[in-house]
């Protein structure tokens, strides 16, 4: 066990004051089969002003640990079954609910994984902030409001006064996460737990949030527990790291040691799986037939209003996009949230009304009758971002995989089931699990199920819309490997949509960078990553955290500006980006005057 060696090492450091001490923590869940341990024998110290990262694959118990500290475990199903959590003089595990309430928010604050849903949708930002302040400090409304605005200013949110009156849905993901941070830090807690604070965010936004956290920590001296599976983030932020696997701590060391001299085999595997920029294996350029061709595709969503329901605005989701995907190629589409990537994917499978021309295998999609559309759908399949959401939770996995066969009336029930079993095996799952339901699988497994389903019809093109973004590194690596293997075996093409530049660098043949519905740069992987021309492309690449603690990056001036909006009045169009070939098919956009 690595624990024995790890503990003295951290203990030996000239310890400033320890604010939180976890000793032998065990958390278990009650199930039909009896108690199931979720976290076992976890011990660590948290010192003033330091950042402790907890890393590990999905389901390893990271969130449960943080919830245990906050006293927010989903009682009575899950509870602490052993150990102690010492915070100052108190043992948090023994505190009553009212006593815990005094601690929560005031002395230990938490930021949750999902900024989109962690704020109450029906309360203004201001109300939620002031409320947190007034819950612990005996101040009046105006004073609370003043402090709230101050907190918003501290997290560098533009126009804090106006934000106070806005509702969460009026803010972007990054802004919401800043509100969460402001809320957590408004009362200057001693400990801040950040559970995957940036996983759901764009790289550029992630960068801003991380910088912000670091600045605030430097200013306030808060101790941070940072939970993440992104080793890049760990490298950049943490002083010390705990690596967890299956509810146990497998290694604890300083960040330098973990990255430089990983001891446990698991840690080594984890680090190996981390996608890194510039590490992608070079592949011969693919020169096959185009399997899909988009020419001048435009997708606009009308926003209606007024008495007669006339169109008052258009969302210019995709503007004049042209590219083609060749047979056997992996074509990547990158860009920030909302830039229109998914919309392109939807247009390709006929889910979004579009103008311009989309051809699949030489056949235009527009004007197809339902039968033709159905036939075309056999050739293009899509793997969605969130595998849990994309699988009907009430169907067995076997049925889900056989679904396309049933729909297209291929084979009888027995052969469909056999094919499903075959596909399960192909994506590396046990055929015996055909009768399970989606929720009985892990995220990575679910994504494999989606892939198996997409493979069932042997399509020419698979669209992977953020298919690996939600997965943790090790699983992500496995899924990417699987995709690569299937491609070389079956010769299919991928449209790979992602905002993670490192992943794209690892898998793609060609890359298109999108911004506000338009392609601003397009070229081979080498061209884009080796010689990025467009400033937006550069910004994307620079924002990627590098999983190497030695490469601490300098804080850059941050811009808190908002992303320009794709919404325009009818008749107004965004300035069109003209793509110029700067050699070897490397297209770079310049805005037309």
């Amino acid at each position, binding site marked *: 066990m690595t624990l024995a060696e790890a503990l003295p090492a951290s203990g030996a450091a000239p310890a400033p004051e320890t604010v939180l001490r976890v000793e032998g923590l065990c958390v278990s869940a009650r199930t039909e089969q009896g108690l199931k341990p979720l976290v076992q024998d976890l011990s660590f110290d948290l010192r003033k002003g330091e950042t402790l990262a907890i890393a590990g694959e999905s389901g390893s118990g990271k969130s449960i640990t943080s919830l245990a500290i906050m006293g927010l475990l989903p009682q009575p199903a899950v509870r602490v079954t052993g150990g102690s959590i010492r915070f100052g003089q108190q043992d948090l595990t023994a505190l009553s609910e009212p006593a815990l309430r005094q601690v929560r928010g005031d002395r230990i604050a938490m930021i949750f994984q999902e900024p989109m849903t962690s704020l109450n949708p029906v309360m203004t930002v201001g109300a939620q902030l002031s409320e947190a302040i007034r819950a612990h400090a005996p101040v009046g409304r105006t004073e609370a409001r003043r402090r709230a605005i101050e907190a918003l200013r501290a997290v560098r949110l533009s126009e804090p006064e106006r934000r106070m009156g806005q509702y969460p849905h009026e803010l972007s993901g990054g802004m919401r996460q800043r509100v969460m941070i402001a809320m957590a830090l408004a009362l200057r807690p001693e400990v801040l737990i950040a559970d995957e604070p940036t996983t759901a965010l764009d790289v550029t936004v992630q960068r801003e949030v991380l910088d912000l956290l670091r600045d605030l920590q430097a200013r306030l001296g808060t101790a941070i527990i940072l939970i993440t599976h992104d080793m890049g983030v760990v490298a950049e932020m943490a002083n010390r790291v705990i690596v967890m696997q299956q509810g146990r701590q497998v290694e604890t060391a300083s960040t330098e040691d973990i990255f430089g001299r990983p001891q446990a085999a698991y840690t080594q595997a984890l680090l190996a799986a981390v996608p890194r920029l510039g590490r992608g294996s070079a592949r011969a350029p693919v020169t096959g037939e185009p399997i899909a061709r988009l020419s001048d595709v435009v997708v606009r969503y009308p926003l209606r209003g007024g008495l007669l329901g006339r169109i008052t605005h258009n969302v210019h989701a995709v503007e004049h996009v042209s590219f083609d995907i060749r047979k056997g190629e992996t074509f990547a589409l990158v860009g920030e949230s909302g830039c229109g990537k998914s919309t392109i994917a939807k247009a390709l499978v006929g889910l979004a009304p579009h103008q311009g021309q989309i051809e699949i295998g030489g056949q235009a999609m527009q004007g197809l009758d339902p039968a033709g559309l159905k036939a075309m759908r056999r050739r293009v399949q899509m793997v969605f971002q969130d595998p849990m959401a*994309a699988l009907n939770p009430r169907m067995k996995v076997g049925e889900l995989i056989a679904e396309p066969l049933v729909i297209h009336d291929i084979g009888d029930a027995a052969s469909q089931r056999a094919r499903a079993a075959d596909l399960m095996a192909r994506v590396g799952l046990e055929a015996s699990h055909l009768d399970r339901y989606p929720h*009985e699988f892990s995220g990575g497994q679910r994504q494999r199920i989606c892939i198996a389903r997409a493979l069932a*019809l042997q399509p020419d093109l698979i669209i992977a819309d953020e298919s690996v973004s939600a997965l943790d590194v090790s699983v992500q690596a496995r899924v990417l490997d699987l995709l690569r293997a299937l491609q070389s075996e079956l010769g299919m093409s991928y449209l790979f949509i992602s905002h993670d530049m490192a992943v794209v660098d690892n898998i793609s043949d060609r890359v298109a960078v999108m911004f506000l519905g338009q392609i601003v740069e397009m070229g081979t992987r080498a061209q884009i990553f080796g010689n990025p021309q467009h400033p937006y492309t550069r910004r994307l690449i620079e924002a990627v955290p590098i999983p190497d603690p030695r490469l601490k990056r300098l804080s850059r001036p941050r811009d808190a500006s908002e992303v320009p909006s794709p919404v325009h009045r009818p008749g107004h169009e965004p300035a069109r980006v003209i793509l110029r070939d700067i050699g070897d098919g490397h297209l770079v956009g310049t805005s037309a005057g």
Partner: protein
Amino acid sequence: MTDPSVVDVPPQGALARLLRRKLALFGLAIIVLVVAGAVFAPWIAPFDPNDQMFDGLTLEGAPMPPDGKFLMGTDLLGRDLLSRLLYGAQTSLVIGVVANGLALVIGTLVGITAGFFRGWIGGVLMRFTDLMMAFPALLLAICLAAIFRPSLWIVAMVIALVNWVQTARVIYTETSSLATRDFIAAERTLGASTPRILFRHILPHLLPTIIVWGTLGISTTVLLEATLSFLGIGVQPPTPSWGNIIFENQTYFQAAPWLVFIPGAAIILLALAFNLVGDALRDVLDPTQRGRD
């Protein structure tokens, strides 16, 4: 590579899991009891339900309270209440289960279609639903029943035709949110036909709502039937139904409480039983609930 978080639940039939729940079992028992009572009424009922017995009334013409001979007392015409309840179960089951079920089916169909097709079909269906909602149901029932000749099945149909509206509204709202879920989009990209999406994928998710409205609807439809028969369009006397036994005797709740509270309890119990079974069924049929609870 098995994920540790995968809980191994021994696969079991839905029925077996249903039977493990005590409350569901209790509900099931009541339903079975009522159905058996209705079906075997001719054999179990101690008296002819329509026999206005001479000794069923006091000399002043008051009904007899429960005693050794009339286990649940007699009604205002000197008929045995127990026998009437047993026979009345036939009517009330038809109304509560068939009519209410039919209303549920219509409401679900309308709601699901309107919620799924946002275009003019949805618009027209929902405007029609709004119209029906604004329309006094009782009046519609009266007119429909006056146009047709009242019979149990006509009444059941009439009740179905006026009662689907609320269900349609609720199902509509839920369907429209379900329709935007990813797995529905996924299903479309697979080329699934619309009926397949509607019935294979969306419908199962509506089950909890359908169960809630369905079970709450049992007692309201049984009582509605009584109102209708009072207006001359329900089942005609002397055919008993639980609703009209209450309705006929409701002013006597002090003078002859058994005539009101016994059938009232029967209706509540039946609705409750269906609810218990429905709730359990919902949990059992919802695979995401497996291993939790």
